[in-house]
């Protein structure tokens, strides 16, 4: 940024204190036409490359952003009941959460799964669980999102196998999977295999889907969890873009056309902190991503250049103290998301910092978004902040800063190496400490936490009690399936996976064949571990 330009008005000029964003960017007290004099933003239009102002020219005037709240249920049976209920109430998209054993590739009867079966989402051992969860659900009408990463290739294979067995034409099958393993090494931690092999598996799903299930979106790149782990807004975007580029490079190396892949890619981002900083992050990020896809990857189609995103209010901004304040915070996060031109929105519930959200608190989140859509005029005009001296100037700054941060990752040997060696984890974790201490010592203001505090009664906290009976039933069922399936065939199918893994072939076809014979998640993952090995976590903090 050219701070030497005398026409800019600085804090010194006005004798006020200097202000910096969380990203380290200095904010001037006043912005004028001078600040955007050399900016290309003057000529930008929504729906036109590079899409800084939004990916569509009609945006919410035509259709408001999609509201998609996240929920998880323990058993496939409960999950099916809940799905039926949601569909009856008009929901057209389902979001599936999985328990930790499934996410880490362990069966319910594995000793390491004890106490975890069905705890944070649905349990899946075999295709049977998918068949129960999606019983009587019309997959032509409902889009299903699978929130799973480490063992995503198996979950996607099961989804496809289930649809095929039920008679669907998989060339028309829709749906999405999170399947962003690189961010799992930075935050959330459900990795299984070494980094390069993990990426290879993501590319396998991309290649298979591009050829056989072209309407399926196999990857959603998550800046969200990276930011929640301590990254600042610039890093959130930069690391997510580096990750997206790694998957893109992998897809191209399998002979997939950039326009076929990029148009199916979507992103998941986080919102908390300074309002203008987040908006500039999204606008600058959207412009940069479009340029990367067009200029570096030479995509022809405009929609390949779109940064499609779900941007939601993050848990990182919410507090256990004076929790009602979180309702207000979430409303601001929703506003930020809408002003940033998101495609889909989700908000954390105000009580999520200390308990399981109640139906009442989940309803407040929903109403927050609906009030904005129906009462605030948020859908009337596209990119209402376009042309603001401050927002446009900050958008330009963010575009440059994200690009610079991506070069830092290049210096670390690229994203795969930076993650395998723990470089990113180390930098993110140091920042998490600085941020947390800033809040705990009062250097960073947080209402109800270090300013405007009051004595509070301790709140009733509720956890779903662990359902041992359901876990036992799941283990029983697994035992029954293992006895009744054709074990000779399962053995053969697992041997094929082993052979394909050794020959570095795409594993999707052999995994689909194996799950159709009710091979378990744990059995398949074990074969893959035998060939690929396991990730050795670099110990950094």
């Amino acid at each position, binding site marked *: 940024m050219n701070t030497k330009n005398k026409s800019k008005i600085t804090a010194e000029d006005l004798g006020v204190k200097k202000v910096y964003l969380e990203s380290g960017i200095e904010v001037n007290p006043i912005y004028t036409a001078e600040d955007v004099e050399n900016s290309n933003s003057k000529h930008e239009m929504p729906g036109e490359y590079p899409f800084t102002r939004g990916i569509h020219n009609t945006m919410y005037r035509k259709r408001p952003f999609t509201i998609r709240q996240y929920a998880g249920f323990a058993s496939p049976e409960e999950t099916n009941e809940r799905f039926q209920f949601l569909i009856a109430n008009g929901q057209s998209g389902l979001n599936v959460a999985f328990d930790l054993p499934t996410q880490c590739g362990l069966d319910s009867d594995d000793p390491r799964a004890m106490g*975890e079966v069905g705890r944070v989402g649905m349990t899946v051992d075999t295709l049977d669980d998918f068949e129960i969860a999606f019983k009587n659900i019309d997959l032509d009408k409902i889009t299903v999102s699978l929130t799973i990463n480490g063992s995503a290739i198996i979950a996607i294979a099961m989804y496809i196998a289930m649809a095929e067995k039920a008679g669907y034409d998989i060339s028309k099958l829709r749906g999405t999977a999170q399947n962003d393993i690189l961010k799992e090494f930075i935050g959330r931690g459900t990795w299984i295999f070494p980094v390069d092999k993990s990426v290879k598996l993501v590319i396998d799903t991309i290649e298979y889907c591009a050829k056989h299930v072209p309407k399926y979106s196999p990857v959603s790149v998550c800046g969200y969890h990276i930011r929640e782990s301590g990254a600042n807004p610039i890093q959130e975007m930069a690391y997510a873009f580096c990750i997206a580029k790694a998957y893109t490079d992998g897809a191209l190396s399998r002979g997939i056309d950039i326009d076929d892949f990029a148009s199916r890619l979507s992103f998941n981002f986080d919102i908390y902190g300074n309002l203008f900083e987040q908006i500039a992050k999204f606008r600058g990020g959207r412009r940069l991503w479009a340029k990367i896809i067009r200029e570096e990857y030479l995509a022809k189609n405009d929609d390949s250049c779109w940064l499609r995103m779900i941007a939601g209010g993050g848990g990182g901004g919410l507090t256990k103290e004076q929790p009602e304040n979180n309702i207000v915070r979430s409303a601001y996060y929703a506003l930020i998301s809408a002003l940033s031109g998101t495609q889909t929105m989700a908000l954390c519930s105000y009580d999520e910092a200390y308990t399981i959200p109640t139906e009442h608190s989940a309803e407040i989140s929903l109403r927050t978004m609906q009030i904005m859509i129906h009462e605030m005029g948020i859908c009337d005009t596209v990119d209402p902040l376009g042309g603001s001296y401050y927002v446009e100037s900050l958008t330009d700054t963010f575009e440059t800063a994200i690009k610079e941060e991506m070069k830092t990752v290049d210096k670390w040997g690229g994203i795969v190496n930076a993650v395998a060696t723990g470089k990113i984890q180390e930098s993110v974790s140091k920042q998490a400490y600085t941020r947390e201490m800033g809040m705990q010592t009062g250097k960073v203001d947080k209402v109800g936490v270090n300013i405007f505090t009051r004595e509070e009664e301790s709140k009733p906290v509720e956890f779903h009690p662990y359902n041992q009976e359901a876990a036992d039933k799941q283990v029983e069922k697994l035992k029954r399936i293992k006895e009744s399936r054709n074990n000779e065939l399962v053995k053969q199918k697992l041997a094929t996976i082993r052979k394909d893994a050794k020959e570095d072939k795409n594993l999707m076809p052999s995994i689909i064949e194996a799950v159709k014979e009710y091979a378990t998640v744990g059995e398949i993952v074990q074969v893959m571990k035998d060939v690929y090995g396991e990730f050795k976590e670099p110990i950094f903090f």
Partner: protein
Amino acid sequence: MKVLLSKPGLDGHDVGVKVLAHGLIEAGYEVVYTGLRKTIDEIVQMAIENKVDAIGLSILSGTHLFLAQKMKEVMDANKLNIPWFVGGNVPPLDVEKLEAIGASKAFPTSTKVVDVVNYFKEM
């Protein structure tokens, strides 16, 4: 004083445990961190090998009572008599339960780093 900070079970949320590691180091303690997804047996073995003076368990998946029970058993089986504590997504009501199982202290959600450090100083 040397502390082992650990992540038992399958939960991968490690922001809190790493923040505490930084805080303890800054306060002059030596910290050994296990990394993610360790079994209680592995954690106790690491504690013995590294000759630590205390063990911290960070758990955010709601599995704390289950894992604390296991911790008690494995500590007893190994005749390891050093204090161990639990932090993470622990509801206030479970603090007493964890301490009854054998944790010398349980730190519920939103405990300050300085409070943990002070606890160590008094220990």
